[in-house]
């Protein structure tokens, strides 16, 4: 009897411990980044660092001696700002109209396919986007550019495509949340479908759409690898569409590998500045989306909307003349929405077809690329070591992140009192973790794990770094799944005399399994896709199969980055990209299927019964 009590107590403590790790991770990220960058801020001067427009670091600069190099990042802040605006102009606008298309114009049959396409876009690794940029977009742009095509335009296009899924899926959710009665009301008055969509539905979802754009901005700000591959990267202002420029993220990736003392501090400081930008954006997102959610729940605007619909109908009755302009603009909107939907499908098709056409032949003619033995200096490179490294990172990072994530979710959903201070802090920590750009995780891993485990990059350090990144997704989806478990099941277990711990472990958690499992599979895809956080924590050299987890090595994504930078392995790069895409997209589809199948199995043979009847 007492041993049962001890178990209960132990369980609770363990779950709270998981939650505490989330908080500790956030604190550690902030403390380490700030401590490690403070001397650089101090030496360079905060003002000169942020507003200085010359970046010419000297590897020999130390905190003790006088500075020989220049450390101003204003050109890069401008670069980040410009490419973000560019991405918003392309991806934001395209995403906005695509969402409208999906909700209001997409034929019912195509809707699931369209949603899958958007999901797949978000699954494609950023190095693959970058590689597509190098291999397809730059050559195309170079025909009208004075240079090889790199610069602001290429970066904006690639970033734009990358933020599309974020913008589309959130805007779509916002549009779908608009109560149907608005639509019915407007149409009943005699307004056309298109007029209703653009005059009533879209304005009602404005808050959610703005939130989606802000989240898109956050993504664009933090994106690293794809940008590095197409921006040109000279530390100058983005003065034209085809002028080489550099973002803050690129700055970190490009120089971290061989930085001197002050330079390293300055790069970490760049990470701090970037993090501040991203946090502000995320804060804005949270504020706006909370307002919107409240707005949709409480619907204070209903009367306002009704009034609007009424005015609108009056105008229609007054005669089409006075509003023909507005109707016309709606018509244009309809056309743009349809065009956007088609464009997005085409873009995805183009990326995949292009890479497969270029890469599949290599895979078929030189399959030893995948399983061949690695030889130093050989012409015949193999990605087998990279595949093994990838598998190892996936396994280790999941072994760390999944238990902690699940424990945290259990604590939040089953134990914590709603809105207690601790819970708020944990939720805040998870929000922050989900917003931290991947390159900042890389920086953090480099100054903590890599230092702890012997100073050189290793599979272990890389896995630890990535596992923190995975926490938010796993916590959130586990919590969602636990919330979905009917309380009556918990009650039934408790009423039988089972303790809380047993109820959670035997009843609640198993019922939440489908959701947890699909989150885990998606996390695998995420680890496979990541490169920025691994470059300096795990290493970027494609070498022999690692002998242990304290050795380093490139994962597939990192290998693709390396191969695409070195012109003579371009075919191997294409082939690697094909492997990556197949893996990640396969996992995405698999996750969806697993969720569905398990859910069905949990729902019992209810279906079986039905099918038997019909048979």
């Amino acid at each position, binding site marked *: *009897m007492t041993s*049962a009590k001890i178990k209960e107590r132990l369980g609770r403590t363990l779950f709270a411990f998981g939650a505490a790790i989330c908080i500790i991770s956030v604190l550690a990220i902030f403390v380490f980044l700030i401590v490690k960058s403070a001397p650089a801020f101090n030496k360079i001067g905060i003002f000169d660092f942020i507003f200085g427009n010359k970046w010419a670091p000297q590897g020999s600069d130390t905190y003790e001696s006088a500075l020989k190099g220049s450390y101003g990042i204003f050109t890069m802040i401008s670069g980040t700002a410009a490419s973000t605006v560019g991405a918003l102009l392309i991806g934001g606008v395209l995403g906005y109209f695509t969402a409208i298309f999906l909700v209001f114009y997409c034929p019912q049959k195509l809707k699931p396919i369209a949603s899958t396409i958007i999901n797949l876009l978000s699954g494609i690794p950023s190095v693959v986007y970058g590689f597509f940029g190098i291999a397809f977009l730059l050559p195309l742009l170079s025909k009208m550019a004075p240079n090889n095509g790199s610069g602001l335009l290429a970066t904006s296009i690639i970033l734009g495509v990358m933020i599309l899924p974020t913008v589309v899926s959130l805007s779509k959710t916002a549009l779908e949340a608009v109560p149907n009665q608005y639509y019915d009301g407007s149409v009943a008055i005699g307004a056309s479908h298109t007029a209703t969509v653009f005059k009533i539905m879209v304005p009602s979802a404005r808050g959610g759409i703005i939130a989606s754009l802000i989240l898109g901005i956050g993504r664009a700000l933090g994106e690293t690898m794809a940008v590095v591959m197409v921006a040109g990267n000279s530390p100058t202002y983005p003065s034209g569409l085809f002028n080489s420029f550099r973002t803050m993220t690129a700055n970190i990736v490009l120089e971290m590998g061989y930085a001197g003392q002050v330079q390293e501090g300055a790069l970490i400081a760049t990470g701090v500045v970037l993090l501040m930008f991203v946090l502000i954006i995320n804060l804005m997102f949270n504020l706006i989306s909370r307002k919107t959610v409240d707005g949709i729940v409480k619907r204070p605007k209903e009367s306002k909307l009704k009034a609007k619909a009424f005015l609108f109908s009056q105008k229609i009755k007054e005669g089409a003349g006075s509003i023909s302009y507005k109707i016309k603009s709606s018509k244009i909107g309809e056309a743009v929405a349809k065009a956007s939907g088609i464009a997005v499908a085409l873009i995805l098709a183009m990326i995949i077809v292009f890479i497969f056409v270029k890469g599949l032949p290599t895979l078929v003619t030189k399959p030893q690329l995948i399983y061949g033995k690695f030889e130093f200096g050989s012409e015949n490179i193999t990605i087998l070591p990279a595949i093994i490294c990838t598998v190892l990172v996936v396994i280790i990072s999941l072994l760390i992140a999944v238990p902690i994530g699940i424990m945290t979710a259990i604590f939040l959903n089953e134990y914590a*009192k709603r809105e207690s201070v601790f819970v708020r802090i944990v939720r805040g920590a998870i929000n922050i973790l989900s917003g931290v750009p991947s390159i900042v995780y890389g920086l953090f891993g480099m100054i903590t794990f890599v230092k702890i485990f012997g100073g050189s990059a290793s599979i272990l350090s890389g896995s630890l770094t990535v596992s923190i990144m995975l926490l938010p997704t796993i916590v959130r989806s586990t919590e969602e799944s636990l919330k979905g478990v*009917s309380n*009556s*099941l918990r*009650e*039934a*277990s*408790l*009423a*039988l*005399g*089972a*303790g809380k711990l*047993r109820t959670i472990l*035997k*009843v609640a958690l*198993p*019922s939440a399994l489908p959701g947890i499992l699909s989150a885990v599979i998606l996390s695998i895809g995420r680890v496979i896709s990541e490169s920025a956080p691994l470059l300096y924590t795990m290493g970027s050299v494609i070498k022999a199969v690692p002998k242990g987890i304290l050795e380093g090595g490139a994962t597939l994504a990192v290998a693709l980055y390396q191969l695409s930078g070195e012109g003579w392995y371009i075919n191997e790069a294409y082939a690697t990209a094909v492997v990556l895409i197949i893996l990640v997209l396969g996992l995405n589809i698999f996750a969806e299927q697993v969720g569905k199948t398990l859910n069905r*199995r*949990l*729902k*019992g*043979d*209810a279906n*079986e*019964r039905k099918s038997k009847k019909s048979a």
Partner: protein
Amino acid sequence: MKENQKNQLEASFGQSISVKDASLWYSDFQAIKSISIEIPEKKVTAFIGPSGCGKSTLLKCFNRMNDLVQGCKITGEFLIGDVDIYGKIDVNELRKNVGMVFQKPNPFPMSVYDNIAYGPRTFGIHKRSELDEIVEESLKQAAMWEELKDRLNKSALGLSGGQQQRLCIARALAVKPKILLMDEPTSALDPISTGKIEELCDELKKTATIVIVTHNMQQAARISDYTGFFLLGELVEYAETDEIFTSPKDERTEKYITGRFG
């Protein structure tokens, strides 16, 4: 030694329920207003009354399910046998002895077998032969062994609503409760399933005390030995069922019953 202690504790939960001056608040809202009631052992006692009058709330006091509600405050004395259930006791042990069947069938998303074995396993029985025996016995008690013996390993969620509810009863019986609380156990079921469960009550009261909440007057009249009529958190009248239905003392009871009998 430990075993001994457990047995003593188990033995001490009796089968009668005695409530003295009980009140219950959900935050500021008083759902039960100083109710006293004596529920005799091995009888069926029915709680009737309009929606929201506190029947379920009182029922859940008997196995302390109200502990799960935040902001719920309870005063008064609750004795089961002569154990003060709000005193120093093991709540899980209490709930083992005071089983509960809910309004909506809530089988776990597991096999029929695992559903029934869940309770015994909770209390440390893991031997397959023992569990087999308990499962068979419980299903027989719930009069569904014949129906289910060939599909013990199928998911319980594939059963019909009536079967699910009887399975939940079997699941509750598997830990051999001394008292069985049923909160509108048939309100979601068809007349045939309802009849089966009513028969079951008759059978079960040979060994256990049954307290059943129902909205169905005929049901209360058919199966219960005692009936309590509740109104707005008060126990208006409590007596033998025949008496309540033939010669209610309180005018409100009479109105409710005649109104309902139509």
